[in-house]
């Protein structure tokens, strides 16, 4: 059994209004050192696969087909045992 951690983020060229709103709130809280906020999704998956590379392939398919919308999002995958 492998565990996958997937980070789905908006493409850098795309405005992130949620991130901007959170950044604004942080400024209001006085945490002014924060210069930029981008908000994405974190997804955990348990995968039944024979090898790490097989697990990675499954997660890549899952991301491309469903978990991320590649028109506007990128994804990063980390696989652990």
């Amino acid at each position, binding site marked *: 059994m492998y565990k996958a951690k997937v980070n789905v983020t908006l493409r850098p060229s*795309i*405005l992130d*209004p*949620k991130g901007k*709103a959170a950044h604004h709130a942080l400024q209001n809280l006085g945490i002014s050192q924060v210069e930029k906020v981008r908000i994405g999704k974190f997804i955990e998956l348990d995968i039944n696969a024979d090898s790490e590379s097989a697990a990675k392939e499954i997660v890549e398919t899952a991301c491309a087909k*469903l*978990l991320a*919308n590649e*028109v*506007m999002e990128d994804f990063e995958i980390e696989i652990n045992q």
Partner: protein
Amino acid sequence: MATFGVIVFPGSNCDHDAYHAMKHVMNCEVKFLWHKDTDLTGIDFLIVPGGFSYGDYLRSGAIARFSPIMQEVVKFAEKGGPVMGICNGFQILLEASLIPGAMMHNHKLRFVCKNINMRCETTDSLFTSGLEKGQVFNIPVSHGEGNYFISDDGLKSLQDKDQVLFRYCDEVGNLTEEANFNGSIDNIAGITNDGRNVLGMMPHPERAMEKILGSEDGKPIFDSILNSLSIA
């Protein structure tokens, strides 16, 4: 007379508006189609209605796109069958890649529920052939994720191929930034696919069918569709 199919997903909430509009205002045959159905026999025109299919989990339309009926909708559209996605229906058609682009949260992060103005941009489609280019429609919107996005190349292609059917405008038809309440690229409110048989639009013409309910500006769009279907 054409028979309309209105798809019902768990979480659809404009399915009955669409049914009422087609059945009682337009006097057409209409059938509800459950998301687990796979038989589109006898259906001439499909409406993918608004709502919050599957709770909008993950992204709006992302889960609905994999429901059994959507596989049939894709086949129907690829054979040239006319499909109209309204609001959440538009989001589902985008996720299913029947039309290009994606939806993001409204740029001001608010759910917007009000009447807006949109302008007909081309009469070259079965959905708009009975309208006038530049004609302004006052019809409702009701969405949180209607901020249409597409890459620069994709946008250019939409413009070059005359695929933008509706744009947000002010009451006299000017494309202003203020009128573009959700931040959509190029004021886009509705587009068609390359084959011009699939329409996705965020505004709700099916909720603007009778004066007593505030506006009947949606009716000319369905008149145009019926006229196109009777000629075809």
